[in-house]
């Protein structure tokens, strides 16, 4: 897990890099600004359900692979 929001752990950066995408390219595919992707990756912002589903669709994985709740 990368840098995380206290309410949500995320693997977005690893998945993005594995897919060979820049933040800009991912943001274009997800119809959001690059700063949104950057903010999610750095644990500054928790994405909406729609955005989380869009991103998981882009990477062809489950939402749970990208995001998970903290243990405590």
């Amino acid at each position, binding site marked *: 897990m990368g840098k995380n929001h206290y309410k949500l752990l995320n693997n977005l950066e690893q998945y993005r890099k594995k897919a060979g995408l820049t933040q800009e390219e991912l943001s274009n595919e997800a119809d*959001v600004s690059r*700063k*949104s992707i950057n903010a999610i990756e750095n644990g500054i*912002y928790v994405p*909406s359900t729609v955005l989380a589903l869009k991103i998981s669709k882009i990477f062809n994985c489950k939402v749970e692979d990208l995001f998970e709740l903290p243990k405590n």
Partner: protein
Amino acid sequence: MNFYIRFLMLFLCGVVQVFFAIHLLLDLGILQLPSDLMFIPGILIILTSTVLVLSYYYGNEGINNKLYDEYAADRFYRLGNLGYALNGIGLFIIFSIQDYQNWDIQIASNMILQIAAYAWLVFGVLLIWFAIGDYRESQHG
């Protein structure tokens, strides 16, 4: 509409509001205030809001997905809340410090100017804050 134009419009609104607030608070004497010139900050806000609303509903969808995405909305919401909170506290203080024993039209008039100056200052600073942060993040964030 793009990030730069939005930055320019919001920054201009913010700077004008801060200028009018400081002018009233420090009585700078550059403009003849109070006067009809005090409509300028409000007219700028109405024009800017109109342009932003029109661009939201009728602008290019691809650009709007980025300009008006959920992170920008979250940022705007948090700064707006801060503005309302500061305005509430400020209004409470302004109402509390008035001399109601010797209340007259001059004191009432001064109070209205204090309220206007305070609201302009708070929302002007927040508009500048949002505009700079929004544009900087769109480039380097």
